[in-house]
């Protein structure tokens, strides 16, 4: 199977089978071709990418390169990129050119990665379908009438269509894992504090975490290695040593205790999703894992808890977008109040406004205790449930999403239905746990993802389990019809084989 993983491309670059410039040209031409159907990118940085690739080629030639040097990458448009439009999927920032790089961007840049563009996303990462983007929805490459998931829909669709071997993403309530599942790619949300949030436009600060969407768990390990680690600019980043993720990828899973999350297999889980998810257990057992059921009784409270905490933080975090210093400003404001009201009314979309209003309400005098404070208490309970579970098992397993990718427009009229799409992913955010979604099968030609959740700073174990699973399966290597899956610079477009 000629699927291009980051690891394989990295080996090709090191062996001088092709140059970074050639690889970058290929990525740019794929983006050009796919953009009309997918709308996965907001900005393409062709010129800058080719210049960066040329530098990477010199590094590769001089031997001053690492495994990421010269590999094209797409950054979710939530990460500030110096001198490049950084929109966060919003009209509010549709004119915002960041004067600085996010820590994630600068670390990956220092590792020699070549940014080819910025990925489309739900506005300010608020959404589960990528339909709230000011730049229009992203289409799922497996079925263009369906959503890619969100909020990192552009990142997931781009990797699924192999426009680049990887894309950065962020996850506040499932925004890496849910689109990864719906697009058939691998996504990891690290432990809260594992990767710096500096330069990542804040949605809900206590939940936001940067991660990456890749083809394989091995690729995720390679990328996370460069992204992770303490950053003095982010007080919530944690000064815990970053282990060598790649070194433990092949460790045997003998005796690994995997807990099946009972609460994730109830009503609401589509049978065609449950099937492939349960089949992963057979593979894990075969690899030596011990599987048992685990119950986290407070977990069903995740969604209501999240929809108090996240909007509360967002209502404050988004106050800075006031039309005064940067971003959208209304025409001819007649006074200060008018400047604020119209700039924000025009600059924000409906979902963002809904959350700002919800958040403002739950923090208001007289309601704070009943909502925000109570939600924080429930959050502590959920966290305690997870901690207890990790006293018994090494990893938790369940579906990433209740269904496969749904149709564009299917859920836009009912926010609650949309929110319930994150029912399985939100718990890990509330508890700050690392979690992954990896492809585990298909239902009606659409990818299904299985979710693994680990204890705090348990990324190495997650990646190890995911990697071993991917050594036994090839779900992650399958790509949608009509997009290249193998990389042959100069050979022109190649048509991949889809899962039908």
């Amino acid at each position, binding site marked *: 199977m000629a699927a291009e993983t980051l690891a394989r491309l990295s080996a090709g670059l090191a062996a001088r089978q092709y140059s970074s410039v050639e690889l970058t040209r290929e990525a740019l031409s794929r983006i050009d071709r796919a953009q009309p159907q997918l709308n996965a990118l907001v900005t393409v940085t062709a010129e800058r990418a080719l210049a960066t690739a040329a530098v990477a080629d010199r590094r590769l030639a001089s031997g001053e390169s690492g495994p990421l040097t010269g590999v094209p990458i797409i950054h979710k448009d939530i990460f*500030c990129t110096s001198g490049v439009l950084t929109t966060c999927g919003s009209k509010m920032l549709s004119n915002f050119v960041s*004067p600085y790089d996010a820590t994630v961007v600068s670390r990956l840049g220092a590792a020699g990665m070549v940014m080819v563009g910025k990925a489309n996303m739900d506005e300010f990462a608020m959404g589960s379908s990528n339909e709230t983007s000011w730049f229009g929805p992203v289409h799922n490459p497996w079925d263009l009438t369906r959503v890619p998931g969100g909020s990192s829909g552009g990142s997931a669709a781009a990797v699924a269509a192999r426009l680049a071997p990887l894309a950065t993403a962020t996850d506040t309530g499932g925004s890496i894992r849910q689109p990864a599942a719906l697009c058939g790619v691998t996504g990891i949300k690290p432990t809260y504090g594992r990767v710096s949030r500096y330069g990542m436009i804040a949605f809900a*600060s206590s939940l936001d975490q940067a991660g990456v969407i890749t083809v394989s768990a091995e690729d995720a390990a390679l990328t996370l290695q460069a992204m992770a680690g303490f950053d003095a600019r982010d*007080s919530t980043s944690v000064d815990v040593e970053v282990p060598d993720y790649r070194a433990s990828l092949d460790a045997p899973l003998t005796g690994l205790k995997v807990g099946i999350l009972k609460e994730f297999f109830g009503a609401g889980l589509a049978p065609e999703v449950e099937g492939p998810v349960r089949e992963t257990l057979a593979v894990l057992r075969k690899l030596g894992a011990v599987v048992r059921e685990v119950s986290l009784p407070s977990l069903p409270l995740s969604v209501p808890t999240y929809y108090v905490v996240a909007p509360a933080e967002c209502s*404050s975090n988004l*106050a*800075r977008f006031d039309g*005064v210093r940067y971003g959208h400003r209304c025409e001819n404001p007649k006074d200060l109040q008018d400047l604020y009201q119209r700039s924000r009314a025009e600059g924000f979309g409906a979902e963002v406004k809904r959350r700002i209003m919800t958040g403002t309400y739950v*923090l208001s005098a007289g309601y*704070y205790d009943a909502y925000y404070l109570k939600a924080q208490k429930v959050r502590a309970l959920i966290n305690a449930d997870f901690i207890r579970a990790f006293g018994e098992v090494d990893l938790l397993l369940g579906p990433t999403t209740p269904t496969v990718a749904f149709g564009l427009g299917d859920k836009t009229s009912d926010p609650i239905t949309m929110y319930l799409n994150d029912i399985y992913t939100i718990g890990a955010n509330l508890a700050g746990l690392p979690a992954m979604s990896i492809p585990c099968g298909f239902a009606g030609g659409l990818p299904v993802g299985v979710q693994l959740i680990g204890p705090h700073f348990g990324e190495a174990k997650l990646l190890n389990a995911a990697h071993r699973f991917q050594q036994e399966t090839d779900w992650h290597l399958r790509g949608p019809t009509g997009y290249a899956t193998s990389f042959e610079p100069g050979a022109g477009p190649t048509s991949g084989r889809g899962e039908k």
Partner: protein
Amino acid sequence: MEWETVIGLEIHAQLATRTKIFSGSPTAYGAEPNTQADLVDLGYPGVLPVLNGAAVRMAVQFGLAVGAKVARRSVFARKNYFYPDLPKGYQISQYELPIVAGGHLDVMLEDGSVKRVGITRAHLEEDAGKSLHEGHAGVSAIDLNRAGTPLIEIVSEPDMRSAKEAVAYMKKVHTLVRYLGICDGNMQEGSFRCDANVSIRRKGAEKYGTRAELKNLNSFRFVEKAINHEVGRQIEIMESGGQVKQETRLYDSDRDETRSMRSKEEANDYRYFPDPDLLPVVFDDAFIEAQRAALPELPDQKAARFVTQYGLSAYDAQLLTASSELADYYEQVVAEAPAEPKLAANWVMGDFSAALNKDGIDIGKSRLTAVQLGGLLLRISDDTISGKLAKEVFEVMWADGSNADVVIEARGLKQITDSGAIEKVIDEIIAANPKQLADFRSGKDKLFGFFVGQAMKATGGKANPALLNDLLKKKL
């Protein structure tokens, strides 16, 4: 009707850190607008605050200095409101868990009595920028240099009963923060400012009246005037049968009046919640004890020492310790002229302080050093010059910075202590004034002063007064 005034103060002291509380921008005053604000201060998308440890240490020192409880765990909270000089749309402050709670200050009043004022809490927060509404045709300008400057907000109990007490308390806090070196105390630059909560109640009543909060009080004088004005306004309302409204009022120093800014109904709901970008600030005992050990001698301790060590009155000791610079100057003078600590106190608080005031000079910039002033006092105590002539010498020293001995020598001001020389002068005066002598001897005692005056005149005031008295008594 007799009314009692009830006042509580909220003092904002700018902490004397080199950089801002959550960013690396400098805090220096007076730079070109918007040149001392980085992306964090400007509230750019994606930036995050990082707490300045120096600001935390200063707040802890303040807490220890007022005998307060320093919280082992305190939490930063966001105070949410929209204003153009508040770039993030929220101010990072502390709300439910401040770093300092429950202290007090003992304040000496003008009559020498001591009043204890409770300190409810002191918390860390960032300052906002400045909105400039004048000098920009039709628009307001924003200067964000001040945004993110560290402040400690010191909230008192409603313990003060007059504007004078409020000012005395504010001065004491001013003294303390400057002793601690945590605030430069510069009120013109806004480094030290206060809001006053003022209410009145019938004398003897237990329940507090409805309060008005007075904003924009940036000098001791304005605090006193604004409170007095506000008390008058409230009494007028109450005595005409009205009710005081809870509201925020702005003091206008040009017109010496307060006017309503916003009523309670219009007050913002700040929607405080813990700032998720910052971890709670947690101390162990060792940290707090290290901060306690690093405290300098505090004003009350210094004043008590001055009383025992130099035999000064409590009131004088209080005045001399009002600033550590003044106290240090005094102690240097005493070191130079150790025999006369009370004389030194009189000179430092008297002629020296008056001269500083007259020329508007800060003590740190005084041309006359403590060693020089001590040198002058030495010449008084060894009878080289009289106290009266010393004032003349001081004037010259103050004007040109010369030493006492040089001035005394150059002007020939040295006191005459040679009894032969004085006797000779007395003899001449007696000889020249036979009538006065006869009158004196016949019982007109008051004429003694005439002879003293004549002798002083003849010696250019240089005759040693005690010696002159003795000799005159003998001769007459």
